[in-house]
């Protein structure tokens, strides 16, 4: 990816977050340059006065001028730094927020694609471990400051002679040659080291993650992990040794050129004084211009190296941020109620894969019907749910709701009619109440209480210090309360029930519940969803007994779609096999 594009994108992003930031940066550079220039110019007058008339008043005036100049600029710098320190942090967090916004806005399929998951991890790594954004900004500030200063200094030196300026620029050209050479190497280096670093990070993080440690201990895996991390340690430090050795030489050469510039300035300006055209005061002024010029060029060079290095790290971030958002859904129809769902010749495979997860399937769910989807692991049950939720689009075929293609419905109204509890449902560190209502205001407390009763979690919630206003989970705030898997699942079910939807989908909602709790959910389920249409997925075959019809999916096709009773008549069918294999364990022979 072109660096120009990356810079442009980041700058655009930062501009959209805070235009005032840029003005602060520019003002900052002006102050920086002003101080340098005045520091170069003012001593000349003091020296001229000292080597000339030595008028006391004038001497005091120039000393005061120099001191005041330093004081005023230091004050300005300090004030601006105070503003920028805050602004930096703010911008950095806002960039994170934009990052989050993007993740929440992209077409859903990206989120299940390992490529994008990896991309996100790499982007986050750069943002956190390399503080990429704030580093980029800091380096940009420096670069800007130095460029302003260089321009001012050149203006001063041109007063003396263009030869000085041109010669200095020639040495700058040398610096650029070294730098360009360097940058190529650096970019190559970082593009190679980043993946190594990331892999290393994976193994290190394993060790910090408690979930693995039972296995680590019981299976005596510590040696293996130490071996792996050590070998990465070695690999990475070898890489860096090589890198820094080379960097040391070019940075040393850099420095030699700076010395050359300084010495040349003294020689050149010195010989000008020999001609008698300028005095000692001018000598110091021009020489210090030249010295400041080279140190500015050096800082600018470092900043530039820094910027390129960070841009390397930022590549995944930029790529991720460039993913287009979910297309504002084409449709404009408002979905009022889900009366029927119909799959017609739907074929689907996940993006970037060949395997047809669903192969030309058709079925219909009628209004108010309770349907169970049954199949082996990986048969495509959850895929059906995702397609109904419009998280993916079928490759071919059409899904109809109320005889209209689901993509013709307006996005918000469509999703507002569907409530789902996914296998890997997630709850947020909001209050319990907000987790259920998903709304901060306009809450119907009686309804919440009633639903808590239905999923049988009222006792638990009542026992909490702040009741329904207790924060869920401890990650956001220590005052929050951790819920067990089963309790969380009940809250997730409550959330789905609270949503004023006409289609309820439960995908493996009871796996973390114990048998008693599971039975309660089953028995209340029809009651809870009332006359809504419901789709139910579970490996507990007993749950399908409650459903009106069962959709049996086997290897991407509909094997059967009928009532429990009818399906049990086909003893060759998958459904019968699945049911019997579990039921046989429950022969009650007392």
């Amino acid at each position, binding site marked *: 990816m072109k660096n120009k594009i990356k810079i442009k994108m980041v700058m655009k992003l930062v501009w959209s977050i805070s235009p005032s930031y840029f003005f602060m940066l520019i003002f900052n550079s002006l102050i920086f340059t002003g101080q340098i220039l005045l520091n170069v110019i003012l001593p000349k007058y*003091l*020296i001229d006065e000292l080597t000339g008339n030595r008028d006391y008043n004038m*001497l005091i005036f120039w000393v005061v001028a120099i*001191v005041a100049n330093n004081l005023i600029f230091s004050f300005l710098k*300090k004030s601006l730094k105070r503003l920028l*320190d805050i602004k930096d942090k*703010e911008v950095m*967090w806002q960039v994170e*927020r934009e990052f*989050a916004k993007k993740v929440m806005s992209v077409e859903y399929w990206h989120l299940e694609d390992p490529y994008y998951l*990896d991309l996100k991890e790499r982007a986050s790594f750069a943002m956190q*471990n390399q503080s990429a954004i704030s580093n980029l900004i800091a380096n940009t500030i420096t670069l800007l400051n130095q460029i302003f200063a260089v321009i001012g200094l050149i203006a001063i030196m041109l007063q003396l002679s263009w030869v000085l300026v041109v010669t200095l620029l020639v040495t700058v050209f040398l610096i650029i040659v070294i730098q360009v050479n360097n940058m190529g190497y650096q970019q190559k280096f970082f593009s190679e080291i980043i993946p190594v670093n990331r892999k290393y990070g*994976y193994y290190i993080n*394993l060790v910090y993650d408690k*979930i693995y440690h039972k296995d680590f201990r*019981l299976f*005596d*895996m510590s040696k*293996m*992990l130490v071996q792996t991390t050590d070998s990465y*340690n070695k690999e990475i*430090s070898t890489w*860096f040794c090589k890198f820094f050795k080379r960097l*040391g030489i070019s*940075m*040393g050469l850099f*420095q030699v050129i*700076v010395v050359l510039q300084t*010495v040349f300035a*003294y*020689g050149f300006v010195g010989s000008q004084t*020999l001609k008698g055209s300028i005095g*000692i005061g001018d000598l110091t002024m021009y020489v210090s211009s030249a010295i400041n010029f080279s140190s500015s060029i050096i800082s600018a060079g470092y900043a530039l190296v820094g910027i390129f290095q960070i841009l390397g790290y930022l590549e995944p971030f930029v790529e991720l941020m460039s993913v287009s958002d979910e297309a504002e859904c084409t449709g404009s129809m408002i979905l009022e109620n889900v009366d029927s769902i119909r799959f017609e010749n739907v074929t689907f495979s996940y993006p970037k894969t060949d395997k047809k997860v669903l192969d030309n399937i058709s079925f219909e769910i009628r209004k108010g019907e309770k349907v169970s989807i049954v199949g*082996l*692991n990986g048969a495509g049950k959850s895929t059906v749910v995702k397609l109904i939720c419009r*998280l993916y689009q079928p490759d071919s075929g059409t899904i109809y709701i109320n005889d209209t293609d689901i993509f013709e419905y307006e996005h*918000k109204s469509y*999703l507002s009619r569907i409530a789902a509890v996914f296998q890997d*449902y*997630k709850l*947020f*560190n909001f209050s319990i109440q907000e987790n259920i209502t998903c709304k901060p205001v306009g809450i119907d407390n009686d309804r919440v209480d009633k639903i808590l009763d239905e999923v049988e979690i009222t006792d638990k919630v009542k026992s909490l210090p702040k009741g329904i206003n207790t924060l869920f989970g401890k*990650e*956001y705030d220590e005052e929050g309360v951790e819920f067990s898997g089963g309790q969380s699942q009940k809250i997730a079910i409550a959330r789905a029930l609270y949503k004023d939807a006409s289609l309820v989908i439960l995908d*493996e909602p009871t*796996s973390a519940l*114990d048998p008693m709790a599971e039975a309660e959910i*089953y028995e209340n389920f029809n009651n809870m969803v009332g006359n809504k249409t419901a789709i139910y997925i579970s*490996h507990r*075959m*007993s749950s*399908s*007994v409650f459903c009106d019809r069962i959709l049996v999916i086997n290897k991407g096709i509909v094997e059967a779609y009928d009532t429990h009773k009818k399906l049990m008549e086909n003893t060759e069918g998958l459904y019968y*096999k*699945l049911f019997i*294999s*579990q*039921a046989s364990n*429950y022969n*009650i022979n007392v």
Partner: protein
Amino acid sequence: MAKKEKKKAPLIHLLDCIRLNDKTIFILCLIYTLVSLIEPIFPIALPKVMIDYLTGTSPNNRGIVWIALGFFIFYGLFSFLKHWLNYYSYPRMLKLRMTYISKQIDKLLNMDYKYMESAKFFDERELAFASTNSNENGVEGIYHKLYELPQLVLTILVLSVFIGLASPFILIALIINIAITSWVAIAVNKYEYKKKEQLSKHSRRVNYYAKTAKDFSYGKDVRLYDLKERILDNFNTEIKGYIGAFKLIKNREYALGFLSLLTLLLSDICTYGILTYLVIKGMPIADFSMYIIATSTLSIKMTNLSENITYIMREYMYVKDLFKFLDENLVEDDGERLAVPGDIPLEVEFSHVTFKYPDTDNNIFEDFSLKIPAGQKLALVGINGAGKTTFVKLLTGLFTPDSGRILINGHDIREYKKSELYKMFAVVFQDVNILAYTIAENIACSQDNIDYDKVNSVLKQVGLYDKIQGLPKGVNTMLLKIIDEEGTVLSGGESQKLAIARALYKGGNCVIMDEPTAALDALAEQEIYEEFDALTKTKTSIYISHRLASTKFCDVIAMIDGTGLIEYGSHDELMKLGGEYYKMFITQGKYYQEGGALA
């Protein structure tokens, strides 16, 4: 495990680490210090030499060229050396940090398991762990600063003497300026430390949103429950909260900064005023230029030194935490007893065991006793939260009972050496943790001496052999895609089988399966049940589940609830008893009966 309680100052710790790993650093630092001491002489002397020459008798261009050339050679050489040495040494510090990472990892892997589950333990040591994660802070940061330290101190001494000889007032003013500036920096740091809790509370909250909102696995719920705007709004609020707290610190810094403005004024007045005065009193103008440069060099070096020291002091707090962690004794005393030989099944006895998790109030077990005769197949059942998994953690020695004893073949498990105790158990947990290693390594749990015949035979036993033979690299295929893009990702059922293969490979005298079928379909579940037999043979085995069907192939069922053992006996006995087990079994089986009856 050595258990000597060493108490070394962190600085000694850091130096020791250099001594043990890379003594060359000392020499490099010495050379660097000498070079850096000489290097500033050139830019300070150059204006004096040049101006003296120009204002002297009969200056000419040739003379100027000679001066310039002379300075270029020496100044250039030293400048090159100084920078090169700096870069040359840099990665050596990185290496030192890596040794600390290794130590940390080793410590984490070998400390008692109970600390792993303690959020408090990790919260308290968060800073310690953070002190090794970057080039620019903690351990490595301090190393880089220490490398500069002798150079700064010596240069400052030399320059101070030099300037002090011209005018002690300038020196005093400079020192006052730097002292106040440093004091301000320290005061700000202290204030920041005082506000740390408040700031970390805000940063925890803002980090929660940063993490959650970016977490892909939240994507479905965010979309379906229309939470995007809500989360972004909250995120924004938290950013504001964080910035608010951060502002407090920066405001304090800003306010205190006015003090250093005052001292800057003082030092500038002294420098320019006194030097001007000295020139009037007869000091050559060349010396004026020289002292101006010397003063500003000294001022820069002093600022560097003060930053250097405040930096070290700040990072020292974190590094101290790290060393405390590394020196802490986190391993309980274990015994000397070796594992029971592989073919002898274990007899296990819980005797009056009482246990609660550290930092909690509720006892999971209270005066709990249970005996598992050698070779028995026990089903441990109970509702969620009854303590089934805790039972496993206690038996395998991951946690230690608060009171009571756990006996293996008549000996308290505390008599066994920890590593020997672990050897005796082959455990399959509900959550299978596949690591990014090859299939063979995942099964053997080692990278050396893998017995490939055994790997193949256990893969055959669990029915994964054909699938894995079909992969291009067979058992040497990497799992997961994080390390190797060509890696293989196993399905839930396959992962369970791999975990069983791992347990089979390990062997041991006692097999424990903890809810291995929760996420599996009915046929896969059935397969696992059948493999349980192959896995256990004559060994003592414990099957934990809330799916009561699993009890069919066990000899005895122990039913526990939050208080302890409530029912014990064979399936038939417990069904006859008509207690809790009966109720649970009927509840679970009821719809199979009805469903079956409908057929």
